[in-house]
């Protein structure tokens, strides 16, 4: 075993979907946040990757002042963590928790 590591495979996202409305809400929140991030290409790339993982369309980035963008990203991070708690599917919970951690990382360097 490596440090803090075990061999594992991810739990699959569920196809028949008790989380459908949750995913719709997550997509809407990411898309809205990305619409403020055009001045930070790394953030746009992250949001685009997250939407792609949810099989959603890429965002249309717009620009907002940095303080507003930071607030919006902080709200998105908390929303994603809460959504991970709410997800019925373990695989979706894992994906959403990872997204929340990605936003946390990007906020550190924003």
């Amino acid at each position, binding site marked *: 075993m490596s*440090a803090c590591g075990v061999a594992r495979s*991810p739990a699959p996202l569920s196809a028949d979907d008790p989380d459908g409305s949750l995913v719709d809400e997550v997509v809407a929140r990411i898309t809205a946040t990305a619409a403020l991030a055009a001045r930070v290409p790394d953030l746009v*790339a992250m949001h685009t*990757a997250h939407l792609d993982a949810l099989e959603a369309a890429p965002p249309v980035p717009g620009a907002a002042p940095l303080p507003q963008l930071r607030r919006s990203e902080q709200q998105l*991070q908390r929303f994603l*963590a809460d959504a991970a*708690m709410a997800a019925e599917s373990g695989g979706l919970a894992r994906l959403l928790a*990872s997204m929340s951690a990605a936003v946390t990382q990007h906020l550190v360097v924003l």
Partner: protein
Amino acid sequence: MSDVQVLQTALAAEHAAVYVLGALGGRTSQSADPELFEAISAAFAAHRVRRDELTTAITDLDAEPVAAEAAYDVPSGLERAQRIARVARETEQSCATTYSWLVANTVDEMRRWAIKALNETAVRVLTLRGTPEMFPGAGEYADR
């Protein structure tokens, strides 16, 4: 996999992380690389806390927490700070994978614990000279 087995797997991983980070701290010069020393010391302390929390959670389920192994593999070539930082970073990234797996396999308070641990370990990757990732702990999504 039962709740106890899931937590035991995470605890075994924490034992390994504590060991490796302790070894890395011992190879890091506090005077020559104070920032790296501080980052590794903070990571070591954080994983000891996580280890103890998992131990308590398992005990609360009336199970015997898995013990640490006598020793774990520590990579060689730790003469340079850059290499030490990389191994520490890889340890945190491996922990992120463990925590995200824990998120998938738990509910309620234990899932909340795992989400918080995942977010915190992702930040520690940055303190160890890392850069932001698209999917901490779930890198297969970045490779799609």
